[in-house]
């Protein structure tokens, strides 16, 4: 099976949106709204847009809702203050504010399109489960959002996986497009564009999961979130921000059902195994935690990293696991069904687990655990790519290009891609996609992108084609060397032992083990130190070298190999960031610098991979707050 067997297809467009998840759909819609007939908007998506991305299994709430003049509704300032506390200070307030001020139009559009948002029967207003969230019947959330997106795009390429960005060959640090392959028929795709919006979601399965064997897939963030969001910009030479601030959330043990709904809508509380309450967190515990987390420990609600920290400590010191006291707040079958429906619409496994283990939430509590770390920028973490801010409100230092342009000319980001601006969730990601969509439209219609023509040589295209299909060729060339029986077509031989190649699963388990053991995974109770990080870095290097011997028996496995390679890049960015931040801020403890250091480290961390040499570099930049304390 040689690369030459697959046809090459070149697609020219003005704006290329990579990833049709929440942010990508917002970007396509908004870009087209402004482009009209004047610029072409193309979407490329690795799956089926109707059920792709983190919302592909549905959701039970828009975790970011409307901001209005109504005194009952929050104002953008409130949200910035909340996010600032929740993410321990180092956020981009311009970006966070920007999302809040555009949220209402997003929710209105969702409503119009048919998303069942719960309303207060009396006032007709959208209900809230907490201060920011609207509960929904969200089984078809993504399918509903995909509809206007598909209608808006000029062209949609589905089941096409983007492997590499293309840089302009004449202008340094200028994006020119991207390449990838068709997962169904193997077509090699070359997209050439004036502006590229990366909206490729977050990263799961980067760390060893708590699940094992066939349960590998039981991550909170879905298995298909493979880190292209950061890998594609990193390969183009874009800068990250705060990548050490990986996300570790508290979840129901094993099934990983989220906890916001029980805490916020059902007002449940959680305790340790002796019945002592830890969430809502009692004041005397806040006072103790303030010794490590300073004033952040007193924030209301308790910041997510501190809530997670409590669960970690309880487990570590033998008081765990924390228990969600579900039975206290489920007086009747109706309320139980509300709980079930919440999960069936979002994380069906949670209900399946209760049913399988005969756990009746109306009668007994359920165990909670801290998850393995994820990298994604839309929930309670601040790691992601470094993006330019809104022209009207961002401090000058944060304005090097159009809104949401990364540090590579012409390359934009949104949703899980853009860091230091967490708590956007599904609806905020859609909003940020819209922001980036308008900025990109302006960029190609009236900005520096207007007269740009991508310069990409045929040599480059052929070189990438060879690179992309090499795992397939390598496999078929080497396969017959051993007596290992051949598998049925399309079925992976997970545990094939071959001297000359490794399959994606073998590469992935190595990556996960390194990240877990050296970069503060659950297996180390989220601790690391300089020694471990340096050693982990070396091991990641060797893994990177071993990707030369990656093998794929099928196009499906080829997809997996490239997904895994993207995860590796994310892992490198995380470890390099952790190696350089000399304090502990986030969901881990750096034993050499075990405290938050407000004096020296209330700064952003940035890493960059030089696209020519593959060398990594690090710098910090100041945090500039624009909203009063």
């Amino acid at each position, binding site marked *: 099976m040689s690369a030459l067997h697959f046809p090459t297809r070149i697609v020219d467009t003005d704006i290329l949106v990579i990833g049709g998840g929440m942010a990508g759909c917002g970007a396509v*819609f*908004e870009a*087209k*709204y402004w482009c009209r007939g004047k610029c072409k908007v193309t979407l490329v998506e690795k799956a089926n847009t*109707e*059920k792709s991305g983190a919302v592909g*299994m549905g959701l039970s709430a828009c975790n970011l809702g409307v*901001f209005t*003049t109504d005194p009952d509704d929050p104002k*953008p*300032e409130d949200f910035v203050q909340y996010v600032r506390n929740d993410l321990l*200070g180092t956020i981009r307030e311009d970006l966070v*504010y920007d999302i809040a*001020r555009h949220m209402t*139009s997003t929710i*209105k559009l969702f409503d*119009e399109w*048919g*998303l069942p948002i719960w309303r207060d029967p009396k006032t007709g207003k959208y209900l809230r489960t907490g201060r920011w969230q609207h509960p929904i*019947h969200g*089984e078809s959330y993504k399918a509903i959002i995909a*509809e*206007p997106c598909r*209608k808006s795009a000029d062209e949609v390429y589905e089941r096409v996986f983007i492997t590499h960005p293309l840089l302009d060959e004449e202008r340094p640090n200028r994006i020119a497009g991207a390449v990838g392959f068709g997962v169904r028929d193997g077509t090699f795709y070359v997209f050439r564009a004036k502006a590229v919006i990366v909206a490729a979601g977050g990263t799961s399965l980067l760390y060893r999961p708590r699940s094992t*064997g*066939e*349960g*590998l*897939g*039981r991550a909170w963030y879905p298995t*298909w979130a493979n880190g292209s969001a950061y890998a594609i910009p990193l390969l183009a030479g874009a800068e990250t921000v705060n990548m050490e601030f990986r996300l570790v959330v508290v979840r129901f043990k094993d099934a990983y059902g989220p906890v916001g709904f029980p805490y916020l809508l059902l007002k449940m509380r959680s305790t340790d195994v002796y019945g002592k309450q830890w969430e809502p967190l009692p004041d005397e515990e806040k006072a103790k935690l303030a010794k490590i987390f300073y*004033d*952040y420990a007193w924030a209301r609600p308790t910041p997510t990293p501190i809530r997670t920290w409590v669960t970690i400590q309880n487990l570590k010191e033998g008081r765990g696991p924390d228990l969600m006291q579900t039975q206290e707040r489920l007086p009747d079958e109706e309320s139980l*069904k509300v709980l*079930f*429906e919440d999960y*069936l*619409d979002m994380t069906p*496994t949670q*209900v*399946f687990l*209760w049913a*399988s*283990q005969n756990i009746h939430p109306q009668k007994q509590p359920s165990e909670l655990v801290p998850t393995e770390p994820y990298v994604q920028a839309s929930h309670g973490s601040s790691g992601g790519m470094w993006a330019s801010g*809104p*022209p*009207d*409100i961002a401090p000058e230092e944060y304005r090097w290009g159009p*809104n949401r342009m990364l540090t590579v000319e012409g390359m934009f980001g949104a949703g899980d891609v853009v860091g230091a601006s967490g708590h956007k969730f599904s609806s905020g990601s859609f909003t940020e996609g819209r*922001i980036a969509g*308008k900025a990109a439209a302006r960029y190609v219609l009236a900005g520096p992108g207007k007269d740009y023509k991508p310069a990409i040589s045929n040599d480059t295209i052929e070189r990438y084609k060879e690179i992309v299909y090499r795992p397939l060729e390598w496999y078929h060339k080497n396969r017959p060397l051993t007596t290992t029986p051949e598998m049925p*077509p399309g079925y992976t031989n997970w545990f094939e032992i071959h001297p000359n190649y490794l399959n994606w699963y073998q590469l992935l388990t190595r990556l996960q083990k390194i990240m877990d053991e050296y970069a503060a995974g659950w297996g180390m109770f989220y601790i690391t130190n300089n020694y471990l990080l340096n050693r982990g870095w070396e091991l990641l290097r060797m893994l990177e070298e071993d990707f030369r011997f990656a093998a794929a028996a099928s196009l499906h496995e080829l997809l997996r190999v490239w997904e895994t390679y993207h995860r590796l890049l994310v892992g490198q960015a995380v470890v390099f960031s952790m190696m350089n931040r000399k304090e502990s801020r986030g969901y881990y403890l750096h034993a050499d610098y075990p405290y938050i250091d*407000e*004096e020296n480290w209330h700064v952003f961390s940035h890493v960059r991979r030089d696209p020519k040499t593959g060398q990594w570099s690090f710098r910090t930049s100041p*945090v*500039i*707050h624009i*909203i*009063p*304390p």
Partner: protein
Amino acid sequence: MPTFVYSSLCKGCGKCVDICPADNMQYNPKNRKGYNADPIMCAECMNCVKYCPEHAVDVRPYADFAPLGARVGVIRDTKKNIIYWRIMYRDGTVYEMASPIRTTPWGSAKGALEYPERTDLDSELLAMEDKPEYLGFPELQRPKQAVRIVGSIIKAKQQGGSGR
């Protein structure tokens, strides 16, 4: 619950293959049936189960933590726009539930070009935000008392005396 396909029910239509976000579901040209080729990457999202017109796809919860014996039934009715669930516990307890999935007919959502055109490409207002009910405010919000604090916000708070 990684999924699997009952041989006797599958008609090989490929809908499960088409929808799976993980690219797990594959089509076997030999017997012209769908199957889960990559169960360890299955998120139990249930899309293949919901989209199979023959109800040939079923789930069996992750064996590394879920004991056998629970059963799940689901019907996603895109005419009535309701999803029906039936959950049977290992101990036999049964729950049935139904929830709406959409408030408008499928295909009815408007694309960008169906919304009125605007010319303020230069403004920071997004689509429809020229209308206050979409914006939520009479005009685009900007920080009311913008400040510029470089570095620790805790320190700034302490200095400003507006601590906890």
